[in-house]
Every structure is written in structure tokens, then in C-alpha cells.
């Protein structure tokens, strides 16, 4: 009986109460934000959520001048859960935009239902090559980078410096191989070894002993999250850090630096952004973030902050007419909002054309370690897949 009433009410709402054509400004904007909020990776989700909340605060709780809210979903670091959360947001919460997504596998699993629904989706971290290439879509944008670009930056830097005999380590799963391939796309020097370790491995002393015996000139690792903390600590404890410099990608950042103390001091990282990136918008973001949350934002936070501001800018451009997707997409393609990365552009595949930097782990004035810009490696870098993207127009 109740269900029948519900159906009748819903039917009446659909027929009579909803505006027939969508030229009117919406009275509410709902943004779905999917990230990891539980488990050890929950720290990344915390950075992202805090940054998105800060962006909303600074916009006065409005997106494009319209009262707005963000609904957060926990993907639990699992693709199936991520997809389910995404579908719930589309059906139950009727979100107007989807963003977040730390992990490539979660994003890939959630991608099809989101794209099919016509909602504009903005990846605020993961950048799997499929989405930059053959699977690109008009209603998908990346507010971050394509996965390969960060290791490419390290490969380019080490190649330009003429650093030879590099010992490479990554976990034995798909992203690990992708990262090493990205590195090798620009690094043409000698590789001492390319070692794949068990995902989630805790102790690296065996590998460190091997590195000492192999005598490389440099070590390059991709060991995200807890693996990075473990490897970097153990590498420093072994005393090798003083003789063989450690270069890494996605392995040391502001989510793990508090646990590393001085073990990471002087190590090299790469990225499109760092807290000290010199532009007014970034200063404003970092200052406000630290004032509100009392910790240093990571790139996860920066990307999430940008994603919300990008949505705000697009909604503003169409004066709140959320049904005009084409105009919002056209606006997003201009990359006109004020980004913490400074000026950048969107490529034909909706991935940023942006600069990448060599970063160095250093102690800030407040005694906290952060990643600091050392030098620019790529200017206006494009990912390797955009030519495979043949964007079909939106229906």
C-alpha cells in the first residue's frame, strides 16, 4: 500500500511538478564525492574531504551561487563498493556532479554507470590510461593527471641529468608495471634491475641488501601508502641513503610524511603541484587549509579543491541551468577557473596539459616536512594517450 502511494506521488511529481524544459536555474546543486574514508588509506580520503569542505566554505556553501551540498561515499578501497556507492549517488541522491576517486580500479569500475547517466564526472586523483585514450568521454574530466605522467617526469629528469645504473622497485600489480613503463618512456639510461615486490610487503631489508650488493647509482621506487613509509624508513636506517640517492613517485607525500620524520629528508619526488608552488591562488589555498585543519595539504587535497572550484565555475557560466550540460562542458574545457596549479589548459581528451616538477623533501619553517619544488621538468606536458581518444559528442 505504502509503495503504491509512493509510486503515485513520484509519478505526479514527475509529470506535474518538475519543470518540463530545463531552462530554469536549479535551486540546489548536489555533488557526489567518492573516496576512501576507512582503513589505512582513509588518510587520503580525509585530505580530499577536508579540501572539498574548505572549497565549499570559501564559496559560502554555494556552487555557482546556488545553495549546494556534497554527499560523501566510502569506496572502502574496493572497486565493487565504489561502483555501488556511485550508483546509489546517481539514483538515490540524484547528484548533479560526481568527483573524488583515488584509485584507478575504483574509477574504472564506476565509470560506465556514471558516464551513461550523463552526469559530469571529474576524477580528482586517479588517471588510468583507458580514460585518457580509447574510453574518453565528453562528460569526463580529470582534475589531476594521467597516471604515467608523474613517473615520466622522474624518467625525464634522471635521463637529462645523465644518471645511469638505476635500481627500480615497484609492487607486483598492474599500476606498478604502468609506473615503471612511464619512467622508461623518458629514461634511456642503464637499468641495474627492475624488481617487483609483493603488494603490501612490510619488510624490505632483503631488497635493501640486494641494492647494496648491486651498487646502483640511484634507486627509483613506486611504493604508495604504507609500503612507501616502510621502504623509506628502512632505507634510511640501512645507511644507504647517504651513498645512493632515493628517487620516488607517489611514494612520499604529505599524507605519509608525518609518519616518516626525517627518514625522507633530502629524497626526491615528482608531481604537478607542491604546497609551495608559487602562485596567489595556491598561497590562498594552503594558508586557508592549514589555518582550518592544522596540517599540510597533499596533492590529493589540492586536486579535490580544484575539482569543486571547477564545478563552481561551470555552474556559474550557465547561470545555474544544470540541464545545459554542453555549455558546462564547453566552459570546463577552457580551464578558466582559478586553479592552485596556476595556468593550465585542457587537452582534447579532457586531461590537463600542465607543468611537472622535481620535488625535494625538506623541513618547513614550522618544523613539518613537506615536498618542495626543486625545478620544473616538463612545461605544458601532454599525456601519451590523447591521440587514441576520439571524443564522441554527447547525446
Amino acid at each position, binding site marked *: 500500500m505504502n509503495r503504491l502511494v509512493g509510486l503515485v506521488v513520484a509519478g505526479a511529481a514527475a509529470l506535474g511538478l518538475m519543470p518540463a524544459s530545463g531552462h530554469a536555474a536549479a535551486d540546489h546543486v548536489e555533488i557526489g564525492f567518492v573516496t576512501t574514508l576507512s*582503513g*589505512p588509506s*582513509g*588518510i587520503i580520503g*580525509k585530505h580530499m574531504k577536508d579540501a572539498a569542505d574548505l572549497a565549499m566554505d570559501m564559496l559560502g556553501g554555494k556552487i555557482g551561487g546556488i545553495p549546494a551540498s556534497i554527499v560523501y561515499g566510502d569506496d572502502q578501497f574496493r572497486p565493487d563498493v565504489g561502483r555501488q556507492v556511485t550508483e546509489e549517488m546517481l539514483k538515490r541522491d540524484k547528484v548533479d556532479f560526481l568527483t573524488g576517486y583515488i584509485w584507478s580500479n575504483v574509477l574504472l569500475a564506476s565509470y560506465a554507470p556514471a558516464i551513461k547517466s550523463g552526469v559530469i564526472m571529474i576524477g580528482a586523483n586517479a588517471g588510468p590510461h583507458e580514460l585518457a585514450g580509447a574510453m574518453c568521454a565528453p562528460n569526463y574530466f580529470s582534475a589531476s593527471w594521467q597516471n604515467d605522467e608523474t613517473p615520466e617526469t622522474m624518467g625525464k629528469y634522471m635521463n637529462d641529468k645523465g644518471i*645511469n*645504473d638505476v*635500481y627500480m622497485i615497484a609492487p*607486483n600489480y598492474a599500476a606498478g608495471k604502468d609506473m615503471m613503463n612511464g619512467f*622508461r618512456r623518458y629514461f*634511456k*639510461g*642503464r*637499468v*641495474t*634491475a*627492475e*624488481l*617487483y*615486490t*609483493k603488494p*603490501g610487503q*612490510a*619488510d624490505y*631489508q*632483503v*631488497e635493501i*641488501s*640486494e641494492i*647494496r*650488493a*648491486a*651498487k*646502483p647509482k640511484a634507486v627509483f621506487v613506486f611504493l604508495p601508502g*604504507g609500503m612507501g*613509509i*616502510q621502504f623509506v*624508513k*628502512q632505507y634510511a*636506517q*640501512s*645507511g644507504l641513503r647517504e651513498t645512493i640517492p632515493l628517487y620516488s613517485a607517489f611514494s612520499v607525500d604529505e*599524507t*605519509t610524511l*608525518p*609518519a*616518516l*620524520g626525517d627518514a625522507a629528508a633530502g629524497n626526491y619526488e615528482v608531481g604537478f603541484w607542491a604546497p609551495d608552488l608559487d602562485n596567489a591562488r595556491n598561497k590562498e589555498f594552503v594558508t586557508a587549509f592549514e589555518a582550518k585543519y592544522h*596540517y599540510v595539504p597533499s596533492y590529493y587535497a589540492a586536486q579535490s579543491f580544484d575539482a569543486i572550484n571547477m564545478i563552481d565555475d561551470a555552474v556559474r557560466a550557465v547561470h545555474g541551468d544544470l540541464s545545459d550540460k554542453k555549455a558546462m562542458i564547453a566552459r570546463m574545457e577552457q580551464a578558466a577557473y582559478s586553479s592552485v596549479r596556476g595556468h593550465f589548459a585542457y587537452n582534447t581528451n579532457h586531461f590537463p596539459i600542465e607543468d611537472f616538477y622535481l620535488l625535494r623533501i625538506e623541513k618547513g619553517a614550522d618544523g613539518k616536512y613537506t615536498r618542495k619544488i626543486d625545478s620544473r621538468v616538463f612545461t605544458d606536458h601532454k599525456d601519451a594517450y590523447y591521440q587514441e581518444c576520439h571524443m564522441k559528442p554527447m547525446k
Partner: protein
Amino acid sequence: MPHEADEVGGGGSAADRVMHASLLLEQLLNGVQFAMTLFLMAAGLTLIFGIMNLINLAHGSLYMIGAYVAASSYAAWHSVLAALALAIGATIVVGIVLEVGIFRALYDRDHLDQVLATFGLILFFNEAVRMIWGATALYAAVPRFLAGQVELLPGIPYPVYRLAIIGVGLAVALFLYLLVGHTRIGALIRAGASNRTMIGALGINIGLLYTLIFGLGAGLAALSGAMAGPIFTVESGMGDDFLILAFVVIVIGGIGSIRGSFIAALLVGIADAVGRAFLRPLLALAVSQSAADSAGPALASLLIYALMAAILFFRPRGLFPPRTR
């Protein structure tokens, strides 16, 4: 221009590296060191499983609590003794509260109920730790007097802290050997492992004995966690993966046997280290380097379980099962 993909540069050919004697010694030492961390965890687990017939999945949570308390109290007071005392003391208290409050109701239930209940405790403790210490992994410093390296073999410096872990592991093994083999409590523990009903019938306060053993197990887990902190990541859920290895150790060693756990921990630790170090270069002699690069680590991580399967095939109750009637 340097050539691309000069795979086997650096330390000579793969065969050379396999034969490298000092590297082999160093990797054996790495294996022994890993074994000691495993042993501390497994010793408590095997007592609890062997004597009380309780599968305690929350043992990894006790390890985590030990690591968190040790890391945060060391950060506050910079005293190794205070950090260890607090970590072990606090974890024993938590362990005893769990034993009295929850596990007593579980001893007579079947293993599935125990697994469910203690799995629930894992979720509880992982979340509790996040609420108390936050989501960021905790910084755990190496005590200053244990920082740095010593040169064991010419040209091979070894972290002092890891040597300290080996030392503590051996000391605990000796302590447990004396406790179990040469004290009245030890006689009760052995009797409990052989026949629980009988020692109850002989008028021993079995409840008190269980609580004592559980406290001992919790203390050992805390010591293991406290020492693991500076090497591993002190984060919510840090004990969960480690617990699986500890179960492998006690199954190989024979459930309830401290001596078995010690030998099994050594076997597992050394097999793991040697497998990770030498399977890949050995494989590279047979197949291509890139095939060895991906197959090596996969096979190495299987090695421990292959070892367990092989040992259980010949000795289904483990290496040193306690004599039961």
C-alpha cells in the same frame, strides 16, 4: 648514448650474484631477524590456541596496540624503558579485560564462533585506534642508542636496531624456555597443552591459569609490536597481515609448542628472505630476465605456503605437536 634496457648491469651476471657468499650470509641474517619478529607474535598465539583451544584473530590488534602505545609514549618521554613498560602493561590490561569479559564465553564454543567474535574485535580495535590516534600513520622513532649501523662483515653495514631485535627475540626464547620447562607455571602450561580437562580435575584453578597465559600472550604481542614500530608503518590494521604469517608459523611448529614456534619462525623467516633474494636471479638463468622479474616475487611469496604444505604433508600436526591424550 647509453643503451636501453641493459638489464643485467651493475653487480655482474645473475649467476655471480647467486654465488655471492657474503650476500647470502647477509640475507640469512635478514631471515633470522624477520623470524624473531614473527616468533614473538607466534609464541603468544600458540600458547593461547594450544592451551585454551581459542583461535584469537584479535592477537594482531594486541600487536597494534603495543606499537601505538610504544610509539606515542616514546615520542612523549624519549625513554625506551618507559615506552616498553607502558606498551606491554597497557596491552596486558587490554588482553586480560578481553579474556575475562569476552573470551571466557568463547572457550566452549566452536572455532567458527571464535573466528567471528574475534574478527569483530579486529574491526573494533582498528576503528578505536583511528579515533584515538587519528587516521595518519604514527611516527615511531628508532631509539637514539640503537640508530646507525655496525659493520658485521667488511663492507656490509647492518642496522643496529635489527640486531637488537634479534637479541630481544633470542632473550625471549630463552625466557620462555626456562619458564615453560623449569617452573611450576611452566609445568601447568605444558599440562594444559596436553590435557586441559585433566588439570582442571586435579584441582588447578584453570580460570586463573588461562588469564595468566592470555596476559603473557598479550605482553609478547605488545613487545613484538613495540619493536616493529620503528621499522614498519604504525597504522590502523597493521597487525592483520602479520597475523596470517604468525598462524602459518604456529601451524608448522605444532599448535601449543613454543619450541615448535621458534623453529618454524626461523624456517619461515629464512625461506622468505632467501626466496625473495635468490629466486629471481635463479629463475633468470632458466627463463628471460623480464619473465623472472614478474614470476620471481610471485613464487617467492608462495614459498612460505609451499613450505607449510610440504611440512604438513609429512607431519600433519606440525613439527613439535604437544603430546596429548
